[in-house]
């Protein structure tokens, strides 16, 4: 009973975080827009008004852009990923074991049956995508199907189902948009400052020394904000992987399946062809890097497989 409660709580937290992120994203975009407009207007009129009409207009524009961008990403996000990976739908008759295993987990999790697809490649991997409960898709590679036993396949299917149940895809799309927008806006800000700064030097006789400090502060923020945002995004992604592993065990009540599946995945790791870095967080193990080459921990989408296995063993005992 507590297993269901935990999973429901995780889903609620995820929904709330997604909403808060959207609010913060819009506020950040609007604030940066205001700053840009304010700087431009200040330059043009040689005064630095506290209230800037151009700033307000830019803020409004940025808010509309950020909301629109998020909405578009959510609406087309999963179609984009699927087209990219070119997977094929399967029926129960074609791959009975995979279909049955997903159906079992659908019953265990209470999540409606997702689309099940197979990707014709020897690489061992699986991913899930879907922005709404009941509109999910789980994709498994042919290599994985041929390699894993039934229990291992069940563990992997439950991990992907956990991503769907926790609405991770939606969460990561919104996080990705946030990070992209922060980078874009900070870049804009730097350009505006560079352009405005050269103009300002001719007007220095006005003696606006307070403005100089503010500009330096803005430059520091504009340089470090995107880096910090990226690190946060990756940290969120790794936490989501741990959560999906734990939720998977709650569904199957059998940590050994996922443990030995992860072991096989680590052993036979091969880079996955045709996957962009933009979608790598959706996979069960990182499809871009091989596992022998250590990624800097701060910028990895997935935790170390050994780490994940160790945590699963703790759950099992």
């Amino acid at each position, binding site marked *: 009973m507590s297993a*269901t409660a935990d999973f429901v709580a995780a889903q609620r937290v995820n929904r709330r975080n997604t909403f808060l992120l959207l609010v913060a994203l819009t506020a950040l975009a609007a604030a940066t827009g205001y700053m840009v407009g304010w700087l431009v207007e200040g330059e043009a009129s040689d005064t630095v008004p506290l209230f800037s009409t151009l700033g307000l207009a830019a803020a409004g524009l940025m808010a509309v852009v950020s909301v629109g961008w998020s909405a578009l990403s959510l609406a087309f996000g999963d179609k984009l990923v699927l087209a990219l990976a070119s997977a094929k739908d399967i029926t129960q008759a074609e791959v*009975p074991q995979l279909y*049955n*295993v997903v159906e*079992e987990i659908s*019953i265990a999790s*209470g999540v409606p049956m997702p689309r099940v697809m197979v990707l014709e490649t020897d690489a061992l991997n699986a991913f899930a995508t879907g922005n709404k409960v009941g509109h999910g898709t789980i994709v498994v590679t042919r290599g994985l199907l041929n390699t894993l036993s039934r229990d291992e396949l069940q563990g992997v299917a439950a991990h992907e189902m956990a991503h769907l149940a926790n609405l991770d895809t939606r969460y990561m799309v919104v996080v990705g948009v946030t990070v992209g927008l922060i980078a874009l806006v900070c870049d804009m800000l730097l350009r505006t400052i560079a352009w405005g700064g050269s103009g300002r030097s001719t007007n220095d006789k006005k003696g606006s020394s307070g403005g100089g400090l503010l500009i330096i502060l803005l430059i520091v923020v504009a340089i470090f904000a995107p880096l910090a945002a990226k690190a946060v995004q990756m940290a969120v992604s790794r936490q989501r992987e741990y959560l999906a592993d734990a939720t998977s065990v709650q569904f199957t009540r059998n940590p050994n399946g996922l443990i030995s599946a992860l072991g096989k995945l680590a052993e036979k790791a091969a880079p996955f062809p045709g996957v962009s870095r933009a979608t790598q967080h959706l996979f069960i193990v990182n499809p871009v890097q091989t596992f022998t080459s250590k990624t800097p921990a701060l910028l990895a989408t997935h935790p170390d497989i050994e780490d994940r296995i160790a945590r699963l063993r703790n759950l099992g005992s």
Partner: protein
Amino acid sequence: MSFWIIVGILVAIGLWLIAVYNGLVGSRNQSQTAWSQIDVQLKRRHDLIPNLVQVVKDAMGYEQETLTKIVQARNNAVAASGPAQAGPAEAALTQATRGLFALMENYPQLKANDNVKQLQEELTTTENKIAFARQFYNDSVNNYNTRRQSFPAVLAAASLGFGPIELFNMPEAEREVPKVALR
């Protein structure tokens, strides 16, 4: 003035009772839906077993005892009505199928048979589905039973037709070591 206060209190109590009643109806319906999901899987399982016995019968002629046992267990399970009866009967059936699967390991020609493989996969998935659906059913039933035993529902639940619902427990019977006959 005091008249309206009393009316207000009565209306509040009325709304509270309506909420309690609707809560009972909702959780009872959820339990019934959960049971019907299990029932579908149980029926499927009862249909699959004769097919499996039919397919392996010729190859496993010497294992009459095991085959009789599984058919018997299946018939008991079909005859059982309601979750309380079905639980032990289904557990016994699980036991019998496990015994059969273990014995089938000794027959390479069966393991290579596509028909057998398909039936085995179907039975495995059906058993898993029963196990997973059982968790959801028992959670729903616990929720319903707690509601109907809580105040004030406990005063009127039985007379309004909200009887207790049985849990579906499958006692994991002592895992019998399948007898491997050396002939």
